[in-house]
């Protein structure tokens, strides 16, 4: 279970997941599905951040064997997860409230906000 992998593979994997999330946000009208696609995009970014941290760690490791550079990136991913958990709880509460008022989760109901 060891070896090296080019960073490009991770970039393109995260890019594909991110673009699928963007397409989902643009093509669906169900507010919950749109919210799930946002979570998908967040996870794609997290994966790329972890891959970059391991890449940077390997680069520095060749000159300094005792380094622990790359820790910061993994903690950033941890904080992104924390913030997105808080975001989900508030967002789902807003969607539940919207459903209670309109009996629909169609995102087009929200275009009344512009009037």
């Amino acid at each position: 279970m060891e070896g090296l992998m080019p960073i490009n593979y991770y970039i393109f994997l995260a890019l594909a997941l991110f673009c699928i999330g963007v397409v989902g946000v643009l093509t669906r009208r169900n507010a919950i599905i749109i919210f799930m696609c946002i979570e998908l995009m967040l996870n794609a970014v997290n994966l790329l951040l972890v891959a970059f941290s391991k890449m940077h760690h390997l680069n520095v490791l060749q000159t300094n064997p005792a380094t622990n550079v790359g820790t910061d990136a993994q903690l950033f991913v941890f904080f992104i997860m924390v913030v997105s958990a808080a975001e989900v709880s508030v967002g789902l509460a807003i969607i539940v409230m919207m459903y209670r008022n309109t009996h629909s989760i169609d995102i087009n109901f929200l275009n009344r906000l512009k009037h």
Partner: protein
Amino acid sequence: MNVTEILFWILSALAIASALLVVLSKNPVHSVLWLIVVFFAISGHYILLNAQFLFIVNLIVYAGAIMVLFLFVIMLMNLNTDTEPQKNKWLKVAGVVAGGCLMLVFVAALKSSDTQQVQMGEGNIGLIQNLGKALFNEYVLPFEISSVLFLSAMVGAVVIGKKGD
């Protein structure tokens, strides 16, 4: 092809196929279940990168807590294929074209970049010992602030979700 590469390709194919099914499936419950599969595949990638702490956090927080919350809300509203609102066909085509163009631009910009290697399956930066030391020394203030954030999110969710006004 060694074991790591084979696992990488299997997990990548699983993640992308499940992500497509999240967007394509008509029934919202199926979308949630496919999204859980995506999160499991991404957690598998974290294991391959030896980010063990993030693996377990991703599994517990995302696949465990957040997706159960989504599933609860969808079942509470009794959503299914019949009640699913649909955009008209041309808007869908426009959305797919726009997303495809975004992907095309990114691929064109990045395909000729010089490649560097990623360390797989070894290295100790992803272990809980190293991350815990950094989290409670240099990052102790953001850690405490995030607990305040959670408290305010909890209060906000209760206030927004309360019946009546």
